[in-house]
């Protein structure tokens, strides 16, 4: 996206221009939904997270101080996903506790049904959580390895190695 376009969108969003918000959804809606979906494997949760992300974007747009808009949006998306993970972990603990008390089997909190889980999703779920997130971040955010490694505060060699290993394994799982 040309830098000029980005600036215009940001200025418009800061002014509260609804057309600029709509443009932001056009640019990031599908990409961020794909990112959330590939990480959660659940359409409903992904829609909720997407909605949470865009509301947060409106609230935080005044704090955007230039730089890569892709990086800024996906850093926020990553934070929202991690918040969701923490919430899910708490919920799972509570459910485990509850089921232990009632001597029941633990309930699953995710998954809209078997039809929603495609071959790719099944393969992705076999990857390490961190590697899966990294591959999805790179694919959907379109950030460079350098930008991703900076965002994750890890050496670029580590990022490269994780992505390479992860994608190789994903291909093996899909074959």
């Amino acid at each position: 996206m040309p830098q000029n376009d980005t600036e215009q969108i940001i200025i418009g969003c800061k002014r509260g221009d609804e057309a600029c918000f709509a443009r932001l959804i056009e640019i990031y809606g599908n990409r961020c939904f794909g990112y959330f979906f590939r990480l959660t494997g659940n359409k409903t949760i992904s829609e909720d997270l997407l909605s949470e992300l865009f509301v947060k974007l409106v609230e935080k747009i005044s704090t955007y101080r230039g730089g890569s808009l892709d990086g800024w949006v996906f850093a926020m998306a990553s934070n929202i996903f991690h918040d969701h993970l923490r919430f899910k972990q708490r919920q799972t603990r509570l459910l485990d506790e509850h089921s232990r008390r009632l001597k029941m089997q633990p309930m699953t909190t995710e998954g809209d049904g078997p039809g929603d889980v495609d071959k790719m999703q099944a393969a992705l779920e076999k990857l390490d959580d961190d590697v899966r997130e990294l591959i999805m971040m790179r694919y959907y955010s379109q950030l460079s390895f350098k930008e991703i490694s900076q965002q994750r505060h890890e050496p670029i060699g580590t990022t490269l190695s994780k992505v390479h290993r992860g994608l190789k394994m994903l291909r093996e799982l899909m074959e």
Partner: protein
Amino acid sequence: MNDSTKENLKELLAGFMDSDAAGRAVQDIERGDRLLRDFPAPKPSQNVIAGIKLQMAAASRRQHHATVQHRIWAAVGVAAAIVLASVASLKLPEQKSAEQTAGQYAVVIPDRVWDGSDTTSDITVLSAELDSLEKEITSTSVDETGDNSNLNVGELEMELIETGGNLWKG
């Protein structure tokens, strides 16, 4: 979806491995990317997108309202600070002159009266002070006459009676 033209992968990987290994790694990454493109994730429904647009508009209005409110409160705060500063600057000279006057009187008034809050006892103390001062003045004036300095009270009385008698005789 990934924009691989952004960076030269082979060059980047060559910094960490030999040229052949870097070439193979680039192929692995490109195949993985192709696989992700071939199995795209679903897209959000148009209803969801429409709902998000409404939520964004509402959030924007809330944000705008909060900003306006914040600015109003900031302006009120500044105005209040200015008013307080003006009042303080007007009151300060008055207070200073009052303090100075009180200070001047404080030198004359005895400490126990100055410190006390009981008005009746203050007046009693002041009266006692005045009486003692009167006595001192009287005794001093008697002493100052010189001629009478060696006379006792009886002789003084006799002299007064004699003076009184002479006055009436003319």
